[in-house]
C-alpha cells in the first residue's frame, strides 16, 4: 500500500511538472488543469496558514480568547482568566479587519476605507525613515572612500583594478544620481553626465542579468533531474 502510494506521489508530481512545462509550447488543457489545481490548492493552503498564524496565533491567543472568557466569567460569575501575556490592543486590528468586511453591505461599505487608510498611513510612515537610513545614508557613507586605495584592510591596495574600480564606483554613483534628477532637462554638461549615468545603469543591468543565469539553470537542472532520474529512473 505504502509502495503504491509512493508511486502515486511520484507520478502526480511528474504529471504536474510536465503540465507546467507544456505551457512553453502553447496553452493547452493539461496546463489549464495544472493551473486550476495550483490556484485552488495554494489559495486554500495560504489561507489556512494565515488563519492559524495570524488570526489564531496572534489575535485569538493574544486577546480574543481572554476577552470572551472574561465576558463569560462576568456574566456567569465564574473565575476571570489570567491576563498575563494578553495585549488588548490587538482588538484594534480585529475591529479594523471587521470594518473591512463591511464592504459586503453596500450601504455602509465606505467604512472599509478606514482600515485601508490606516494601512496606507502605517506603511508610508513606517518605511519613510527606514528608507532614508538604509537606502540613502548607508549608501552615501559607503561611497565615501579614497579614490586610490581599497576600502578593505589597512594596506594601501594600489593594484590597477582596485584603483580604476574605486574611481568607477565614484563616477558611476554620481552620474547615476544625476540621471535620476527630475528638475533639469538632460541637456548640456548636465545631460552628458546623465548619459554617462544611464550607461552605468545599463552595465549594471547587463551584469546582473548575466550573473543570474547560472542560478536559474540550476533550478531547471533540478526539475529535469527529477523527471529523468526520480521518475523515469534513467539517471544512474
Amino acid at each position: 500500500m505504502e509502495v503504491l502510494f509512493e508511486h502515486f506521489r511520484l507520478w502526480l508530481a511528474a504529471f504536474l511538472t510536465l503540465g507546467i512545462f507544456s505551457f512553453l509550447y502553447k496553452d493547452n488543457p493539461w496546463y489549464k488543469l495544472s493551473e486550476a489545481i495550483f490556484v485552488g490548492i495554494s489559495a486554500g493552503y495560504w489561507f489556512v496558514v494565515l488563519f492559524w498564524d495570524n488570526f489564531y496565533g496572534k489575535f485569538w491567543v493574544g486577546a480574543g480568547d481572554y476577552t470572551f472568557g472574561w465576558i463569560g466569567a462576568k456574566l456567569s460569575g465564574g473565575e476571570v482568566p489570567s491576563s498575563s501575556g494578553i495585549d488588548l490592543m490587538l482588538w484594534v486590528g480585529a475591529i479594523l479587519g471587521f470594518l473591512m468586511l463591511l464592504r459586503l453591505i453596500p450601504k455602509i461599505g465606505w467604512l472599509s476605507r478606514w482600515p485601508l487608510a490606516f494601512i496606507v498611513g502605517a506603511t508610508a510612515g513606517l518605511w519613510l525613515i527606514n528608507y532614508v537610513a538604509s537606502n540613502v545614508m548607508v549608501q552615501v557613507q559607503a561611497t565615501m572612500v579614497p579614490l586610490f586605495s581599497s576600502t578593505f584592510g589597512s594596506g594601501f591596495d594600489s593594484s590597477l583594478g582596485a584603483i580604476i574600480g574605486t574611481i568607477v564606483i565614484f563616477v558611476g554613483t554620481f552620474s547615476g544620481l544625476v540621471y535620476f534628477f527630475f528638475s533639469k532637462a538632460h541637456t548640456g554638461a548636465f545631460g552628458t553626465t546623465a548619459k554617462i549615468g544611464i550607461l552605468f545603469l545599463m552595465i549594471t543591468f547587463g551584469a546582473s542579468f548575466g550573473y543570474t543565469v547560472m542560478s536559474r539553470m540550476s533550478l531547471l537542472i533540478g526539475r529535469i533531474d527529477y523527471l529523468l532520474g526520480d521518475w523515469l529512473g534513467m539517471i544512474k
Partner: protein
Amino acid sequence: MRRAIPLTILAVVGTVLIVSVFLPPLENLGEDFTLFFDIIAVFAFFLGGGNLVRIHFNKLWRKRKDWGFSIVTLFGFFFMLVIGLLKIGNPGGIGADPTAEGSWFQETFNYVINPLQSTMYALLAFFVASASYRAFRAKNREATLLLLAAFIILLGRTPFGVMLTAWVPESWSIAQIPNLAVWIMNSPNLAGQRAIIIGIGLGVVSMSLRLILGIERSYLGEDRG
C-alpha cells in the same frame, strides 16, 4: 465626512509612526502595526477568497468556456480549507500544528504545491534564454553596453571564457575574462546599484509624504458617495 475621516486616520497614523523612530517609548509601535496588519489581512481574505469562489461558481453556473477547470479549483480550495482548519489527517489531532510533517495538509503541500512551484520557477531558465536572444542586440550605445556586460559575465562562466584570454600575462590578470567579470560585478555594477538604491530611498520619502498629506488619494475611492 466620508473622505475626511480616512484622511485624518492616515495622516495621524503616518505621522505618529515617523516620529516613533525617534522616541524610545514609542519604538515598538511599528511592530504593533505589523501585528494589526496581519490580523486585518486575515479578515481581508474573506473578501479575496470569497471573490475566488464567486467567480468560479459563476463560471460553473453559466457554463462559460473552461468551466470544468473551475470545479478543480473549487474542489482544491475547499479540500485544503477542510483538512487544514479541521486538521483532518493530522497525526497530532485538532490541537496540533496544521503544518506538522505527515499531516494531509502538509503532504499536499509537499507533493502538489512543491513540484508546481519549482517547475514554475524553472520556467525562468527558458525565459532567460529567449529574453537574452531578443533583448541583447547592439541597437544603440546603451543596448551595446547592456549586451557587452551580460556577454562578458556569461562568457566568464564557461571554459571558453577562461581559454580565450588565458594568454594574457598575470600582471594584466584584470583583463582575463573571469577576472574582468568579477571586476564588472564589483565596480560598475555596484555603482549603478548604489545610484538606484539612493534614488529609491528619496522616492519613497516623497511618495510617503504625498500620501500622508493627502495629496495623493486616488486609492481612497470617489469623492462623492
